[in-house]
């Protein structure tokens, strides 16, 4: 892959509504051709960022550059950027064809060019036969695809999608995720997607920015964000995570530390720089936690816990295990009918361990 080229630069964007600071000195660079996602809880400012890029919202301070040119003063209707709205916002009095043709007509595309381009866009979202319907005659998923066709037909430099799948039911949403991703590859248009659904963000994006309270929490590939969360917020927002308290006992150099966790001393890896005596959080994903019979021979050290809850989840079996300190840990194991060691009973004492290096060590936060 070539060196990524910056398409959009957001510099020091800020926005305040009354006393509520929704964006705080926000910086971001989006590369040409990538599928980029703004992820965060509702009210984190992600939609505000999207609306600023679209030109539907004014910035208090900061600048927006598209292809190196400042577009801060360019009104929404003049920006080569299109949006797929959360509620689709289709024009109810126009046919599907007229909806899709709207942008082309507004920008004065020649008449004879409009019909083939609309047909092509509708074909792309597999709605070729629906051109003469009214939006009210379509299902939710079909309306969604019209909204996408209506935006991409203009060949924008940037396509913005505002929680575009959230109105669909689970199954349709999964299907649309795959379709969107495929569409993006085919068109080569840069997609900027906004969502509060971490699963959606991880499965579709090339890169994700996690936001909270108007600030960037972490920017990276889905894998980096899941496996190397930069802080406790990101770790907890992206999937389930177990949180153990620890203290640095000794620094072994090169990001290796002796850490005391639950009364035992472990040799752990951390990206941060710590010194002896620092309090830390040791984080473990439930699927990284191993549960074993305590009577089996154990070459390495382990924690002892008591099974307090067992939940069958279909693909996995989740156990809630209480450690002597009172902290409860979730362990998620893939279900394997042939493995007899799998059958713990409630209140049974078990051994808890994890693959060294799969833990994440962060500075202590409350």
């Amino acid at each position: 892959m070539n060196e990524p080229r910056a398409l959009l630069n957001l510099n020091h964007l800020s926005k305040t509504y009354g006393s509520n600071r929704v964006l705080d000195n926000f910086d971001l660079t989006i590369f040409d051709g990538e599928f980029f996602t703004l992820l965060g809880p509702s009210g984190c400012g992600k939609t505000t960022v999207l609306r600023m890029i679209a030109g539907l919202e004014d910035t208090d301070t900061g600048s927006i550059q598209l292809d190196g040119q400042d577009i801060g003063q360019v009104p929404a209707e003049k920006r080569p950027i299109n949006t797929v709205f959360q509620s689709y916002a289709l024009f109810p009095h126009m046919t599907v064809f007229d909806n899709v043709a709207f942008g082309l007509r507004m920008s004065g595309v020649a008449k004879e060019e409009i019909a083939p381009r609309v047909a092509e866009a509708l074909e792309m979202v597999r709605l070729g036969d629906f051109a003469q319907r009214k939006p009210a005659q379509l299902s939710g998923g079909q309306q969604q695809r019209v909204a996408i066709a209506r935006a991409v037909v203009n060949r924008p430099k940037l396509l913005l999608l505002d929680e575009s799948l959230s109105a669909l039911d689970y199954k349709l949403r999964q299907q649309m995720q795959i379709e969107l991703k495929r569409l993006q590859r085919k068109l080569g248009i840069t997609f900027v997607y906004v969502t509060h659904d971490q699963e959606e963000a991880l499965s579709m994006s090339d890169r994700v920015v996690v936001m909270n309270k108007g600030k960037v929490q972490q920017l990276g590939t889905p894998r980096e964000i899941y496996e190397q969360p930069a802080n406790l917020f990101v770790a907890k927002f992206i999937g389930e995570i177990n949180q153990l308290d620890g203290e640095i006992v000794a620094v072994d150099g090169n990001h290796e530390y002796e850490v005391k966790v639950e009364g035992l001393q472990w040799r752990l890896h951390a990206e941060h720089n710590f010194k002896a005596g620092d309090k830390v959080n040791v984080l473990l994903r439930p699927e990284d936690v191993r549960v074993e019979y305590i009577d089996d021979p154990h070459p390495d050290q382990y924690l002892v816990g008591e099974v307090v809850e067992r939940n069958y989840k279909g693909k996995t079996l989740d156990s809630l295990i209480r450690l002597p300190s009172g902290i409860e840990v979730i362990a998620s194991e893939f279900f394997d009918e042939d493995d007899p060691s799998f059958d713990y009973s409630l209140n049974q004492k078990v051994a808890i361990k994890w693959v060294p290096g799969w833990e994440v060590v962060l500075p202590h936060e409350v």
Partner: protein
Amino acid sequence: MAPIFRWGFMGLVLTLIYIPILVLVVNSFNASKYGIKWGGFTFKWYEKFWNNDGLMTAALNSLTVSIVAASVATVIGTLAAVALHRYQFKGKALLSSMVFVSMLTPEIVMAISLLIVFMALGIKLGFISLVIGHITFCLPFVIVAVYSRLKGFDMKMLEAARDLGASESSIFWKIILPLALPAIASGWLLSFTLSLDDVIVSAFVTGPGYEILPLKVYSMVRVGVSPEVNAISTILLVVSLVLVVISQLLLREDK
């Protein structure tokens, strides 16, 4: 309430509401002058009305006033409804409360207040003062009709239009106007009937040289029964009923 009692009660009230109207309509075709007995079917009262120059002039005047007033009220009212719906501006609360109050102000108060203001501004009583008066009481009805229709739509649509490159004027002509059109047409029709039927405001703001139908009818019924009034009344009733039914159908059409 037991269903039979319920239907009976509603039926009774509705019957009582429509009986006088029916009696009037039937009598307009009654050849017997005082409408006491059925004297056979006739069109002669309609002919008398048709041949009465004074009444015809008044009818034409009424039509003129109503068409002008309804049209102006519709234009101003539609614009105001769009503004109230779309924009945030200083005095928005004041504007909407003026709409609200002008809807509730008793007509008699509106009538004398207009009379006083016409005097104060030196506007001569006659066609102009009638039109202004009628626009004033029609305006809130148009605003409310158009506003409630606009409120029924997802207004992200307007942002979508901007996002797709539509200028402010394209948004108005291509999105808002087509969507609001049924309400605008209905607002015009309702304004027209309100204006055509008005007595109270007209009684105060009309001038000696400009006679309109409802006032003419008023002076005729005050002096006693004259059968051509039945004919005129029937025409007025039927015109209003037809227009109101059309206006309601317009609003229902695509819901």
